[in-house]
């Protein structure tokens, strides 16, 4: 089901606004991640979609239908909570059957559907255990099965992987992707882990301080960050950021003067600093001093000093010595200028959203 927010704001206590004028549409059948630092309002957004929380102002649509006034009972979405929230006194099978019981599905049918779901999420051998006797990964899968039981047209997941160890996380995110594709259910996945978001989703919504920063594909977020926050938030290792005043004329010939005049911050991805000229993509050269050089396996990283500021690059071909002078070729893809509000005004594709 398509979900649309029209100018939605929320305040818990009536004085401090947590979410500011959110506008977005989540297309039917896609998997969308909501990504942002802790406390930015991800869970709150999800609670509003589910109907557990009513927006202070604005409207929410499911398809064409205005559901702003409907509560969670009426909206019929499936939801997996951060700590799973399984019913501790019921067995795995009873947990999965619970929403069906509420929907007054007959007992034999209920059981059959629950068993199918247990199979889908690979917990069919655990159905008679209580949640307390399951591992984190199993609990999470039971929670997903329970959320899918009433065949919701919308599945909401609130940081479902945050309690799992690194390996299980990777396994489970593939699992969620598989289940989503098998069932075709529109899924909204909350996370503060960019890696998770980049791997699992069709589209990513980046949220910060209750403001939507950008809503686009993973690739667009990386190649065309709409502002400094997104540029810094997405990418590993983190983008190099400098002040425009750190440059002493290196950019004058290469960036139009009217843009340069408004630029405040500079972002350079570590892979956009090369020690060799690649030709047409080079927009400028800068002179640096090598501070540190590390080499492990095929990877070569260098920490460089540029007019007293630190730069990191991952694109070194030759071995370097400490304190050696080095000319770097700045690549156009991966070089951005931002104005005083943090908006991108140069670099990437200016038309990309």
């Amino acid at each position, binding site marked *: 089901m398509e979900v649309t927010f029209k100018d939605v704001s929320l305040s818990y206590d009536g004085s401090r606004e947590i979410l500011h004028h959110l506008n977005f549409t989540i297309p039917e059948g896609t998997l969308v991640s909501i990504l942002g630092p802790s406390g930015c309002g991800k869970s709150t957004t999800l609670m509003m979609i589910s109907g*557990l929380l009513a927006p202070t102002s604005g409207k929410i649509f499911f398809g064409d239908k205005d559901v702003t006034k409907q509560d*969670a*009972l009426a909206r019929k979405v499936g939801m997996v909570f951060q700590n799973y929230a399984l*019913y*501790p*006194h019921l067995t795995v099978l009873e947990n999965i059957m*619970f929403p069906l019981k509420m929907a007054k599905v007959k007992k034999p049918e209920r059981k059959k559907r629950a068993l199918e779901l247990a199979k889908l999420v690979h917990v069919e051998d655990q159905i008679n255990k209580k949640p307390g006797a399951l591992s984190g990964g199993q609990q999470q899968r039971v929670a997903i099965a329970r*959320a899918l039981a009433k065949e919701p047209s919308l599945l909401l997941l609130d940081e479902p992987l945050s309690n799992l160890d690194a390996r299980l996380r990777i396994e489970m995110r593939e699992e969620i992707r598989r289940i989503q594709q098998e069932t075709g259910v529109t899924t909204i996945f909350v996370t503060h882990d960019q890696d998770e978001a980049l791997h699992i989703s069709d589209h990513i919504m980046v949220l910060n301080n209750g403001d939507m920063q950008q809503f686009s594909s993973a690739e667009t977020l990386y190649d065309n960050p709409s502002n400094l926050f997104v540029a810094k938030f997405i990418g590993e290792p983190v983008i190099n950021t400098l002040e425009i005043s750190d440059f002493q004329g290196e950019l004058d010939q290469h960036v139009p003067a009217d843009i340069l005049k408004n630029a405040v911050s500079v972002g350079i991805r570590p892979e956009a600093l090369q020690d060799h000229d690649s030709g047409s993509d080079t927009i400028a050269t800068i002179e640096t001093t090598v501070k540190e050089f590390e080499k492990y396996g095929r990877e070569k990283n260098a920490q460089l000093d540029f007019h007293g500021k630190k730069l990191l690059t991952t694109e070194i071909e030759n071995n370097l010595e400490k304190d050696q002078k080095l000319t770097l070729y700045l690549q156009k893809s991966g070089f951005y200028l931002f104005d005083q509000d943090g908006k991108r005004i140069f670099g990437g594709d200016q038309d990309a959203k």
Partner: protein
Amino acid sequence: MKVKIAMVLRYVILILGGIIMLMPFLWMLSTSLKTQPETVKIPPIWIPKQLQFSNYIDAFKAAPFAQYFLNSVFVTTVTTVGQLFTSILAAFAFSRLNFYGKNIIFVIFLGTMMVPVEMLIIPNFVTLSKLHLVNTYAALIVPWLASFFTVFTLRQNFQSVPDQLYYAAKIDGASDWHYLWHVLVPISKSTITAVTVLQVIGSWNSFMWPLIVTNSENLRTLPVGLQAFTGDAGTNYAQLMAASTFVILPMVILYLFLQKYIIAGISKTGLKG
């Protein structure tokens, strides 16, 4: 070595405490098997020369104890079930719902916990007599259908249940009512058992109130019925103790079976009964 001494000391203190607690019960048991002269003998004796089991039979004949027993069972059951029902609803409201004046009402109720039960006897009696309920079963039951101690204990427990469980139930299509009875109550089992047992014991042992609000023999509960052994000519201690043993026996059995829940339930809320 130090640890061992501390350990031994701890057990000695616990055992001493246990003996002191048991003393009255042992005395009751011993007295119930004595002859009349033995009960008032000085210095007191612990073990009668000959065990007088006949005291038990005579005690039963002294008053219609079967009727008293049924009264006690009836009053205790209705009081406990009723009180539990009202308390669960109130505890849910205080822990989960938002309504105008919630905190003020809660504080006022909390204040009532400081009023000693004895102080409530007269106002309660006056109220009941105005309602023409004195000397009825209702008099024995109605004033105890709400207990803020139970509400408070349950509320503390309900509040420790994560919000997300409530939200999950909502998402799954459960109403507040269904969530309360099919999720919250089952997972609060140990606390509910604890307050139930405390209430059953309190209700079963209650003496003052039934004594005051009833005077017909057919409404008498067991503790009141024990008066049968105290007459103008003095008290028949042996038979009184035999009957007392019989009165407290069900509670002792109940406690032994459920002590695990009682201790868990009470220690969880940090409250004492």
